[in-house]
């Protein structure tokens, strides 16, 4: 029974982190795609044929800063996998990761 409770306890934590990162990051990425559509002058958005949309620089800037952020998160993920493989334990102090060797 205590095994079941322990599993449930771990499950909801994973669910929480999962939603935050696993659903959050694609959502952020989606905003980037949206901004890219503005950046291409709305060409990338559904619009009428005779409508002319001017490209917008802010749209492009926003898009690429969002993509940079997502790439950064993926790099952190890779760093995390590597550190774990090397036998480091990563704990979080607030949101700042703390590395300790096992």
């Amino acid at each position, binding site marked *: 029974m205590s095994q*079941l409770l322990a*599993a449930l306890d771990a499950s909801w934590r*994973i669910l929480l982190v999962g939603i935050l990162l696993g*659903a959050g990051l694609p959502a952020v990425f989606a905003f980037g795609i*949206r901004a890219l559509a503005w950046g*291409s002058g709305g060409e990338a958005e*559904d619009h009428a044929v005779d409508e002319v949309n001017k490209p917008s620089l802010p749209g492009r800037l926003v898009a690429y800063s969002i993509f940079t952020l997502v790439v950064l998160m993926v790099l952190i993920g*890779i760093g995390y996998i590597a550190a774990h493989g090397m036998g480091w334990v990563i704990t979080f102090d607030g949101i700042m990761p703390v590395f300790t060797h096992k």
Partner: protein
Amino acid sequence: MDDVDPVLILMAIVVLTALAFDFTNGFHDTANAMATSIATKALSPKAAVTLCAVLNLVGAFLSIEVALTVTTAVIRIQTSTGGVRPELVTDGGFNILLILLSGLAGAIIWNILTWLWGLPSSSSHALVGGLVGATIAGLGFAEVKWFGEAEHLDGVVGKVVLPALASPFIALVVSAIGTKIVFMVTRGVAERYREAGFRWGQIGTASLLSLSHGTNDAQKTMGMVTLALIASGQWHDLEAIPLWVKVACAVAIAAGTYIGGWRIIRTMGHGLVQVSSPQGMAAEAASAAVILASSQMGFALSTTHVATGSILGTGLGIGAKVRWSVAKRMVFAWLTTLPAAGAMGAIMYLIGHLVGGAAGAFTVFGLIVLSALGMYLRSRRDKISSANINAEWKEDPK
């Protein structure tokens, strides 16, 4: 031949079999990372398996942590430091090696059988099942660790069964939420721009999954091989793994990945849900987040279960059509993997034990080769390869 110690022969066979298992582990799991990227054509089939294989190879070398405790969670043949319990190797380690061999045999046969059926079953479940079955046959029921103590998740139930029940649902929920948000945010963005943009996201998340697969799964085989060396008295250092073992395991899993389990990739990319790029990225991001979060918490879950849960979730998230007949067969494979691989492991042990000595080991090895060959030949009747991987899905091909 007569003057060669049968323990050494058996050890060599165990090492070879472990590498063969590693190979099946590779092609069985290519789908977890790459099925959606191949289905949405973010990557060509060949590019996908190549990328996945390279990242698995890199991942395998990243894991320098000593994985000698691979079996301790489920069977009691090791001491707390990772060595083999001395009272079990008074016969020179023969019995322990036969257990390892039989367990691997059960796992390999089940892996190939589920591949033939195109079902993404868990390789780690197959390995655990095989080892538990062989241990029951070889040492008795009591040497299997079924539960962990109190709150500490351990044993067959705590480390394998409970996470397996929870993880597909967690992944499903995360992926469904992610998919829903992604579609809401990008509503109105022209289809072709949306597809193109998300393909990049897909490649990134798929790479993350491949790398993490390499670090986790290759390590299991490295642990098994080293354990066999220790049991036969050929290796004594409990703090390190021989370099050749590491290289051999890394190459075996990468080679398996490169071969690509096309039958399984097809089921996951097309059979369950027809995925689009945004869905693919949402599903893979969900898988990666759930897998990394669980490994942080020491919650041992199967990549396969997470990946299938995510793909199912991405279909449900936007109310797309889900082929429940395929999903049902998949769930059936999940439920049967542990007992089926266990039964095969136990039968293999009994056969090996009855024949006895080096001949027994050869018999078990021969049975693996024969059944693998038989299933491979059967698979050629309805061949699935990189050439027809994206063909239209027909309901329940018989």
